């Protein structure tokens, strides 16, 4: 029983970490809380669902299509919504506001186009049969989620820390103007970051859609609160922090639901968020920058 609980916590925590990964990456490099992230998340899931259902593409192809599709959406939407604000060096809150309007606009559009009802993947797309592994019983997709999260987090981390492009990314995050003077293609890095984080969002949406076998226009919004809690607790822009905070939040929620009360579980994320604001405003590892004068 306890092992099963721990496993459930690991799955839930991985989903939170996965959702937060691209979210915190965008903030780290572009200094924007991009609420459009919730839209990319749902859009990825819809694209994959469409590919499986209408185009009869095998699941791996649908996942690829969903991820690439969301990346394209991410780059296009960034160009539409944020490029002008970036060029005029508008205040940070302007870009937050524009993505707020954007997410309302696009989510409502999606709702109008596809309807609010929950859609499911066709029966043959993936086996939902539970596998028994010692004391554990879990669906294959849950193992896949855990594996994917660890691979992706490591990959993104190494990409940023070890590659030339990663160094350019860090330079832009630090000071875009200086980076441009040093010959970094800032526009390219901005596009890369938007595309990469939207791709991560779309991929996360597909995995979560498969896990719950439910795709719905507002699926991103319902994860948003947890996403916020994770990126604030982990420290804005801190990828390692997001992973630890995501797993921690999953553990806390599952344990609260299992041993305290399932209603109280809903309050865990927010209480943790407020606590983090009081106690560790700089994030778990304390190096996330707040405001630089």
């Amino acid at each position, binding site marked *: 029983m306890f092992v099963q609980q721990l496993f459930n916590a690991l799955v839930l925590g991985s989903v939170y970490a996965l959702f937060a990964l691209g979210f915190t990456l965008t903030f780290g490099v572009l200094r924007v*809380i991009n609420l459009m992230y919730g839209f990319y998340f749902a859009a990825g899931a819809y694209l994959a669902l469409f590919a499986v259902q209408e185009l009869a593409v095998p699941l791996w192809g649908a996942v690829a299509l969903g991820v690439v599709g969301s990346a394209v959406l991410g780059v296009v939407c960034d160009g539409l*919504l944020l490029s*002008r*604000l970036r060029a*005029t060096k*508008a*205040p*940070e*809150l*302007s870009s*937050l*506001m*524009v993505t*707020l*309007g*954007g*997410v*309302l*606009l*696009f989510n*409502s*559009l999606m709702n*109008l186009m596809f309807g609010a009802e929950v859609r499911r993947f066709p029966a043959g797309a993936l086996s939902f049969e539970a596998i028994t592994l010692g004391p554990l019983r879990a669906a294959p997709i849950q193992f896949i989620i855990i594996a994917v999260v660890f691979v992706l987090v490591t990959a993104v981390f190494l990409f940023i820390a070890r590659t030339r492009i990663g160094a350019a990314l860090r330079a832009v995050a630090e000071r875009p103007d200086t980076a441009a003077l040093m010959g970094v293609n800032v526009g390219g890095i901005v596009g890369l970051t938007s595309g990469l984080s939207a791709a991560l969002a779309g991929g996360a949406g597909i995995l979560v859609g498969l896990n719950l076998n439910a795709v719905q226009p507002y699926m991103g*919004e319902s994860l*948003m*609160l947890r996403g*916020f*809690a994770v990126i*604030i607790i982990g420290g*804005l822009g801190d990828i390692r922090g997001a992973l630890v905070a995501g797993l921690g939040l999953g553990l806390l929620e599952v344990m609260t639901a299992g041993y305290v009360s399932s*209603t109280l579980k*809903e*309050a865990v*994320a*927010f209480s943790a*968020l*407020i606590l983090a*604001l*009081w106690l560790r*405003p700089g994030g778990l590892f304390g190096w996330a920058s*707040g*405001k630089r*004068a």
Partner: protein
Amino acid sequence: MDDFLWAYQSLFYGLGVNGLLGLSMYAVLALGQLSLGQAAFMGIGAYTGALLSLNFGMPFALVLAIAAVVPAVAALVIGGPALRLTGVHLAIATIGFGEVLRVFYINSETLGGGLGLTGIPQRADGWTIYGILGVALGLFTLASRSKIGRAWEAIREDEDAAKVAGINVTAYKMVAVILSAALAGLAGALNAHCSSFIGPGEYGFDAAVTVLSFALLGGVSMPLGPVVGAFLLGALPEVLRPLHDFRLIFNGLIIVVVVIFLPRGLLGFRVRRMG
């Protein structure tokens, strides 16, 4: 005929409530702060007011006063830590607060769960709603043209410079967030007492963003702006019926267009002062 009158009466009341919400958004935007808890605070006011009226039958004025104070206290608890950090932290904490409240309403049996509360007595009338709106608008207009308004402007333009100039920035921001919550709570209680029904779905993310669109459409160069914006956005879908289904899309579009094409015009406007 009665139906017709009733339909327009509720629109008339609704617009007044929207106006108050617009003002509550102004209270924070005037200092360049983005608090997205307006819908949440409105919900607290609505539920508090409805419960007091349903269970205790208190005088309406007292109900309204308590419905303004409770969200103000909530704002103190949330705004306190967030305001020490950046504007982004405040925005995130307040959106999160709205979400957690929505879940709380749905799960709480005392608050009617997903069905909400029904049978709230209709105690609000046009005089009360527009009276409160008028007084609030008047006070804000006076404040914006006084020393207080200049401090707001200074904080909005450059927080650090305002601090150096001897303005107690944190205190000003805290008061703004509390005031804004109290106004939203009042609006919620008034709304509950003219629509007789409230539910958990009315105070979520969409509602919060809609209040922001009121303020952005009207512009925040003076307190009247958000009120006008609220009237316009409240009345449009009723006048142009086909627009009704596209209401949220339209609100989102307004925010996008205004922020992109008038970014300085919003967070960096100048108030024209008298004298």
